[in-house]
């Protein structure tokens, strides 16, 4: 499974847009890119998944360039409740196990 690299931590003020970029240079042709959010003592929560270009849902957008070697999770107008660890994963469809890294710890400041 392709390895991912993302920043260990990020800080942001409330109301700002936050962009977390993930590198996945060895992504395979069939791999999807999936982002999860995790709060302390809770299980990871699915945020968004995409294959190419741009995907948007009610909580986030995912931007994927043509070469698919990276992706950017965009969280619009973050609030204190968005403080969490965000994981980027590639591959890991329903048939294959997910390989988690250490994620990005986002701290939102009032």
């Amino acid at each position: 499974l392709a390895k991912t690299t993302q920043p260990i931590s990020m800080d942001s003020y409330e109301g700002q847009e936050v962009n977390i970029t993930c590198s996945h240079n060895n992504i395979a042709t069939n791999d999807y890119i999936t982002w999860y959010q995790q709060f302390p003592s809770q299980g990871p929560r699915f945020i968004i998944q995409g294959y190419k270009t741009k995907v948007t849902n009610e909580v986030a957008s995912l931007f994927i360039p043509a070469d698919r070697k990276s992706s950017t999770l965009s969280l619009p107008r973050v609030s204190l409740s968005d403080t969490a660890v965000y994981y980027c994963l590639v591959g890991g469809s329903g048939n294959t196990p997910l390989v988690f890294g250490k994620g990005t710890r986002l701290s939102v400041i009032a």
Partner: protein
Amino acid sequence: DAGVTQSPTHLIKTRGQHVTLRCSPISGHKSVSWYQQVLGQGPQFIFQYYEKEERGRGNFPDRFSARQFPNYSSELNVNALLLGDSALYLCASSLVGGDSNQPQHFGDGTRLSIL
């Protein structure tokens, strides 16, 4: 719809004991996976079951075992508990079918503490 449910939510055991953790997937999901998450780390894959058969196993000792029942619920068993087994144990389910890339959905885990 109910999400993935796990029981118990918390558990305290002593070294050498065994433990059984339970997971009920989202209705209609046929695949269940188990993960171990120690403090400060991302979840680590333990097992995956689909249609009651083991489809994947992570790098964990034979003290760890699991099974999936006809109703797609699952149990994770750990024997001869060690202090290092203290962790949050997560169960995830997914709707597996054809070439779809259905994401996995997690429960909130069982917090296992070994004394």
